C-alpha cells in the first residue's frame, strides 16, 4: 500500500498550476484534500506520473456569499463550508448535505470542489450542485471557462473537465424565495457511501407548492435533477401526498447492485427517502416563510 513513484509539483499560483497541467496533460492529477486520490494511489489503482498539489496556491481558499449564491474556492474544506454561518443562512442545503459527507476527520481535509471534480455518483456535493443548478469555474493556460452543472457531469467519475484545466471554484446559486430544502441518505454505517441519498427543494408561494425538485446520491450515474412540480403544484403542503412522486422517482433512478445492497433495495430506499425528504423540505419552506 505505497504509491508508485510520481513527480510532486507545488505551484504557488493558479497560473503556475495550470502551466504544469498543460505540460503534463493526461499524466497529471490535481491533489487538493486527497481523500479519494491518496487511497487510489496507495493501492496503485491510479499511478499518475505527476501530482499537481494545489494546497499552496493563493486565492483558492475563500467562501464568498452574495445575493446570487455561494462561491466556494477549490481549497475550502468541507468542514469550513459546513460551519460557515453565512453560507448556511444563504443556502441551508449545504450544511444539511455536508453533515453526511463521510466523517468529521475526512471533512476536515477533503474539499467540496475536489468532491465535485471527482464526480463520484456516491458523492453528496455533486447532487447538491445539481439541485442548485450550479456552475463550475475552470482555469486553464489557454483560457478560463464556466461550465453549467448540466454540462459538467458526463458519467460515473467522468466530467467535461479537460486534463489541462483546474477547477478554481464552484458556485451554488440561491433558491427562489419561499424555498425549503432537506437532505437524507442511508448508509450501512454512519458516514459510509450512501446506499441511496436524496436532496429536495420545495418552493411555496402564496401557501401552495410552486416548485418541487429532487436530486439523488448513489442511485444515478450522473447527478441530475428530477422535477416533480407537476405532481404537487398548487397543493397546500399539508394536503400534498408526497408519495405521489414515487413512480417518477422509480423511473428516474437506475441503481446498481453491489456488495451492500441490491438495485431493487436501493430503488425502494430512494423512493422512500424521496417522499420523506420532500415532506421535510416543504415543512422547512413553511418555517422559512413564517
Amino acid at each position, binding site marked *: 500500500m505505497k504509491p508508485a513513484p510520481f513527480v510532486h509539483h507545488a505551484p504557488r499560483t493558479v497560473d503556475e498550476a495550470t502551466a504544469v497541467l498543460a505540460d503534463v496533460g493526461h499524466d497529471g492529477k490535481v491533489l487538493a484534500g486527497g481523500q479519494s486520490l491518496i487511497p487510489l494511489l496507495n493501492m496503485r489503482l491510479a499511478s499518475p506520473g505527476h501530482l499537481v498539489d494545489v494546497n499552496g496556491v493563493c486565492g483558492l481558499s475563500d467562501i464568498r456569499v452574495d445575493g446570487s449564491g455561494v462561491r466556494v474556492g477549490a481549497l475550502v474544506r468541507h468542514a469550513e463550508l459546513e460551519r460557515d454561518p453565512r453560507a448556511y443562512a444563504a443556502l441551508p442545503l449545504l450544511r444539511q448535505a455536508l453533515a453526511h459527507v463521510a466523517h468529521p476527520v475526512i471533512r476536515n481535509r477533503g474539499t467540496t470542489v475536489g468532491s465535485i471534480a471527482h464526480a463520484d455518483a456516491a458523492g453528496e456535493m455533486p447532487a447538491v450542485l445539481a439541485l442548485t443548478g450550479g456552475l463550475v469555474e475552470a482555469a486553464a493556460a489557454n483560457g478560463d471557462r464556466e461550465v453549467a452543472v448540466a454540462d459538467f457531469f458526463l458519467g460515473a467519475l467522468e466530467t467535461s473537465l479537460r486534463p489541462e484545466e483546474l477547477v478554481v471554484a464552484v458556485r451554488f446559486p440561491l433558491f427562489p424565495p419561499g424555498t425549503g430544502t432537506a437532505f437524507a441518505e442511508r448508509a450501512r454505517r*454512519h*458516514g459510509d457511501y450512501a446506499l441511496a441519498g436524496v436532496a429536495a427543494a420545495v418552493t411555496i408561494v402564496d401557501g401552495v407548492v410552486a416548485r418541487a425538485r429532487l436530486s439523488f446520491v448513489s442511485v444515478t450515474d450522473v447527478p441530475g435533477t428530477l422535477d416533480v412540480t407537476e405532481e404537487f403544484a398548487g397543493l397546500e403542503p399539508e394536503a400534498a401526498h408526497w408519495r405521489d412522486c414515487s413512480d417518477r422517482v422509480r423511473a428516474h433512478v437506475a441503481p446498481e447492485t453491489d456488495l451492500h445492497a441490491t438495485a431493487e433495495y436501493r430503488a425502494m430506499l430512494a423512493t422512500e427517502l424521496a417522499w420523506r425528504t420532500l415532506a421535510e423540505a416543504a415543512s422547512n419552506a413553511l418555517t422559512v416563510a413564517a
Partner: protein
Amino acid sequence: MTTQLFGAPVRRREDPRLLTGGGRYLDDLGAGALAAAFVRSPHAHARILDIDVTGALDVDGLVAVYTYEDLPGRVAEPLPLLIPHPALTHGRTQYALARDEVNHVGEPVVMVVARDRYLAEDACERIRVEYEPLPVVVGIEAARRADDLVHPDVPGNVAAHLVQEVGDVEAALEGAPHTLTLDLSVERSASMPLEGKGVLARWDAEQGELRLFSSTQTSTGVRAAVAAKLDLPLAKVECIAPDVGGGFGVKINHPWPEEVLVPWAARLLDREVKWVEDRREHFISSAHERGQLHRVRVGFDDDGRLLALDVRFWHDNGAYTPYGIIVPIITSTQLLGPYKPAAYRCEFWSLYTNTVLVTPYRGAGRPQGCFAMERTMDAIADRLGVDRAEVRSRNFILPSEMPYDQGLLFQDGRPLKYDSGDFPATLARLKAMVAWDDFGDYRRQAEAEGRRVGMGIGCYVEGTGVGPYEGGHIQVETSGRVNVSTGLTSQGQGHQTVFAQVVAHELGVPLEDVFVTTGDTRRMPYAVGTFASRAAVMSGNALALAARALRAKALRIAAEALEVATEDLEIVEGVVRVKGAPGTSMSLGTVSVMSNPLRYAFDEAAKAATQFAGANDPDRAPVADDDEPGLEGRDFYSPTQATFANGMHAAVVETDPVTAEIRILRYCVVHDCGTMINPMIVEGQVHGGVAQGVGGALYERMVYDESGQLLNASFMDFLMPYASEVPYIETDHLETPSPLNPLGIKGAGEAGCIPVSAVIASAIEDAEGFPITSMPISPVELWELRRRHEAGDLPSLARSTTSAGSAAYPSTLEAP
C-alpha cells in the same frame, strides 16, 4: 490502602502513554531497517509455472529477491502444524514461500527486500509470475460436494472429522415427544486488529545472536519456532513483543511465513530487516474465522426439556490447518452452554477451501455454537408456546449440581467440567434489567405508533484460562522498585494495571512501585501466550504465587533483622513493620539490600542497611544452602482444567417496517467471570466484545466470489462497526468465584462477543415473526426475507400464526 487494590476499578496505567502517542508498536521500531514486501498470489488455486524477477533488478534500492528455490534447510520445509489432533487426519500447512502451488489469493510467492517499503513494492510490481489456474473451491457447499479438491491428496476436502457422543442420541430422538430440525449458518469474519502483523529482525554477527520483535500473541512460541527453523540455539534467539495493537486471535498462530523469512533474510544479509503488514495483506493473507453450517436435530418433552441434541456441522478451515481444529472442537463442546441435554452427539467435518486459513478469532467457535444452541432454544419455545427465558431455565445446570461434568473433552484435551456458576441467578438479573416480563406492553405501545420491535436473549458458558501454565517472576530492587515479569504478551488488555494490582495487593506495596514487563523472552523464557481468555487466570495466579513466595522471604529476612517472629510482621505501603508497633520497621528496599551479601554502598538504601548487618559468623556461608541472593519470587501456575465463566445477554431491536433497517435500542449484559481483579477492565472487555459481536451480527462478512477473490478486502467494504453502530451497553456482574485457583478468577476477554449474533437474531425474529437462521443479517437481507415471507416461501413462527400447518421449523427429522 494497598489492600484495597485487588477488586478496585483502578484506571489503566498504560493509557496516558498509549493515548498520548507514547506507544512503541512494531512499525515504530527499526527506523533504519531494510523493508520487506511480498509478491502474493492473485489466484485462489494455481500451479506456479515460472517466476521472472528480471524486471525488478533495475529498481534503485533493491537489495534482494527470494523465491522458494532460495530457501535452505528447514526454512524450505512446510510451516509447522502447531496443534495436531488424532481426528485431523489430513492436516496441511503452507511453505514460507509457495513452492509450486498456491491455494489462496494472498499466499506469499516472492519476497523482496529493499531500502524502503516504497521501493520494495515497486520491485514487487515488476516481478512476473506465470500461473496455470486450477479449479477453485469456495464455500462450504462446494467443499462438501468435492467436485474439485483443494489438495489433491485430501479426499473430499476433509481435513478432520470428529464425533463426540454422550448417551444414545438416536434412541433418545426416537423416543422424544417433540422433535425439530434446524439449519443454521454463520458467515466468515476476522480478528482485524488495528495493527496488523509485523516482524523486525536484528542479527548481531559478532555475537551470533538474533533479536526479534514481532507483533505477536506469543513471543516464546515465535522464539522457539524461529530458532528451530534457522537452526540456531535457543539461547541465541530472543523475541520481544513490543506494544501490540490488538490481536483477537490472529496473532496466536505462529510462525507466520514472514516471521521465518524476515529473520532468515536479516541473518543472510547481515542487515536489520522489517516487514509491516498492510491492511490488504491482512485481509488476504492472515486469517479469518466463523464460517460454519450447522444442522441441529433436537428432541424435547412437553416442558421443553432437552432429551436429545444432535448437532452436525461443517467448518470452513480455509486452505491450511496450522492451528489444527481448535475452533470446531470449541464449537462442539461449548455449544452446550448452561444446559444439560439428556443425550448429546456432535459431529463435525473441517473442510478445505481455497480461501484464507482459519485461526481462532475472539470467541473461537463459541459464537457459532451459541448461535446454534440458542436458536434451538427459541425454536423449542415457539413450538411449545412457552416463554423463551422459561424454556432456558428449565434446562439449566443448577448451582447444586456443580462441578458439572458434561462428559466431553474440551479444547485442551481435558474433561469439560464446569467448576462453578449460578445460571438461575444470572437469568433473574438479566430479566430484571431488561424488564423481560413487561416487554409485551412495550411492544403493544410501539405497534400503536407504527413501530416494530422485538426482544432477544442468549446464554453462554465459556471455558477460560486453559493451561498448560504461565509463570511469574518478581524482584524487589534496593530502591524498593518492584519488577514484575510474566511471559505472556499484551495486546491492549491492561496487563500493566491488573498484574500490578495483584502484586501490589499480595506484597503490600504501592501500585506506583510496581513495573510490569510482558512478552519478553529475556525476562521470562517459559510462557504460553495471551489467548483463550487466559491471561488474568494464568499469569494473575502465577504472579500471586510468586508474590507470596517473595513476601515469605522478605518477612524471614526482616524478622531476623528486627529480631521478631515473622507472624508479628506485616507489609504496608512497601514497609515491613511490627504489627501494633509500626515504628519498628524496615522498607522492602532495605530487605532487598540485606538479601544480597554483596553489599556495596552504591545507594542510600544500601548505606541504611548497614545498621542491620549481623555479626559475621565464620561458620556460616554468606548464602545458605537453601537460599538465593536477592529478594525475588518466582512461581508457575498450572491448572488441572479450564475454569468456566458464563453470561447472558438480551437486546431490544427495532426494524423499520419499510426499509428493514435494524436498530438496537437496548443491549443488556449480565456477566460472571468469578472474582474480578478490576471491574473497570472487565467492563471494557465486555464492551469491546459486544462491539465485535455487533459487527458479526449485523455488518461483517468476507465476500468471496466463485473464483476465490475476496471482494471486500478493505475497510471501505468490510463493514467493521464504528462507534456510531455500537449501542450503549448496560452491564451487571455476578461474582461466582472459581474454586480452581488461588484468586478465584475466571477469564473475561472473549465473553462479550459470544452470544451477540444469537441475541440479535432472536430479537429480529421476535420483531418480524419469521425465523432468522443465518447471520450476519443486513437490511437488504431482512427486506428480502420479508418478501419471501409475504410470498409464502418462508413460514411464520408458530406464535405468529393460528394455522398449525405453517410451523417455521420442520418437525420431521432430516438427516443431512
